């Protein structure tokens, strides 16, 4: 066999191995592409990185405010198993106090892709996140002095399987998270650490889906790559509740532009009650698709690096 034939055979093998993977990286379920959302967790394992996410949360009840700079990395070990890592830096301003800066807690996670249903554009993922004690600036910034275990289930559903009589609802999709926080320490400095129920959803209308699969309205790049969305996320304490502590959460309308190698997202942050903050906040994020940037190396699952 000559050199060209060997090359063709190797390329064919690579393509066959890739094409038969159940999880395609990115958030695909059939022809549905789920972008990486900014507030809620994604329901798919992936090789992706947010660098950076810049957030200005709503101000606190006492008038304090902060700026956050975060990095998040997701890496597939196998086509269905992945790891996540998140770390952030905060700059906090409290009335009458000098500004304080430092790192927040390190969080890591393991994820498993439970299912991907192409026909119904459905996708589900189980995850366990760990927020580690003493990995941030505990006393000054209030980073936790305890480790928290957070199991959860993330899901996504596109509505491309709606009947043809509802064509313009087909670009809709929803993703969501259901999970719990279990602190490994019941109280810190006399304040109880509650177990929490976390729930969040992202409601998306995909212009890429509208263009590719429903009707071509003549939108072209970059406008055809826009995905308007509204995200909501809430945390409700379920035990060891400090008097006055209630459900907190935010509503975040925004937009994502999804390119070939990266996406850019921006959202406003609206607190749902006074306990969640005052006034408006905002965030912007630059997010890279590592599987597209490095398709033959780091962007592949670790299990395929030697193939």
């Amino acid at each position, binding site marked *: 066999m000559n050199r060209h034939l060997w090359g063709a055979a190797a390329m064919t093998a690579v393509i066959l191995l890739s094409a038969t993977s159940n999880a395609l990286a990115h958030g695909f379920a059939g022809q549905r592409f789920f972008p990486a959302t900014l507030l809620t967790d994604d329901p798919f394992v992936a090789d992706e990185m947010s660098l950076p996410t810049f957030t200005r949360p709503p101000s606190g009840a006492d008038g304090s405010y902060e700026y956050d700079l975060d990095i998040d990395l997701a890496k597939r070990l196998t086509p269905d198993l992945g790891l996540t890592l998140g770390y952030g830096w905060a700059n906090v301003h409290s009335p009458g106090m000098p500004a304080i800066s430092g790192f927040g807690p390190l969080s890591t996670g393991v994820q498993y892709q439970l299912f991907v249903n192409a026909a119904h554009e459905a996708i589900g993922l189980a995850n366990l996140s760990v927020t580690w004690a003493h990995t941030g600036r505990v006393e000054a910034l209030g980073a936790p002095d305890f480790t928290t275990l957070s199991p959860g289930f993330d899901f996504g559903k596109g509505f491309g399987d709606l009947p043809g009589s509802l064509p313009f609802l087909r670009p809709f999709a929803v993703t969501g998270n259901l999970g719990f926080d279990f602190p490994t320490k019941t109280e810190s400095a006399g304040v109880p650490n509650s177990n929490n129920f976390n729930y969040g959803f992202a409601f998306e209308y995909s212009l890429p889906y509208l263009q*590719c699969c429903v009707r*071509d309205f003549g939108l072209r*790049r970059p406008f055809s790559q826009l995905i308007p969305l509204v995200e909501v996320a809430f945390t409700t304490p379920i035990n060891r509740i400090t008097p006055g502590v209630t459900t907190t959460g935010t509503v975040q309308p925004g937009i994502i532009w999804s390119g*070939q*190698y990266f996406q850019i997202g921006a959202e406003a942050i609206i607190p749902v009650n006074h306990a969640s903050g005052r006034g408006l906040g905002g965030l912007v994020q630059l997010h890279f698709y590592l599987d597209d940037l490095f398709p033959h190396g780091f962007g592949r699952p670790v299990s395929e690096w030697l193939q």
Partner: protein
Amino acid sequence: MTRATMIRLGTAALAASMTLGLAISPARAHAFLDHANPAVGSTIPTAPPAITLWFTQDLEPAFSAVTVTNQAGQRVDLGNAQVPQGHPDELQVGLKALAPGTYAVSWHVVSVDTHPTEGTFTFQVGGE
């Protein structure tokens, strides 16, 4: 640390991002359908002799295909799907003579970096 430090950190993060962006290889990513002729969801008076799909990335011809079916699920394409010479981001297939009606186009492609994608859409011939 101060706000100036934060700005420096932000600048460093953006610089790292730019470096990552510059490290990308050209024309290597998932292939999305950019547009088609007949257009997605369109109604046309008469059918063209072939349907053409344009993608956002170059395709692997051996692993890319498109079929067209009528409302009864019968194939109405000529089975000669191809990536035309010199147009690596296009996929074409010839069509039989089409009666008025709605037709479904199903495609699956592999981009040159081995990422598979798929999709379906419909178009209508005549004023049914």
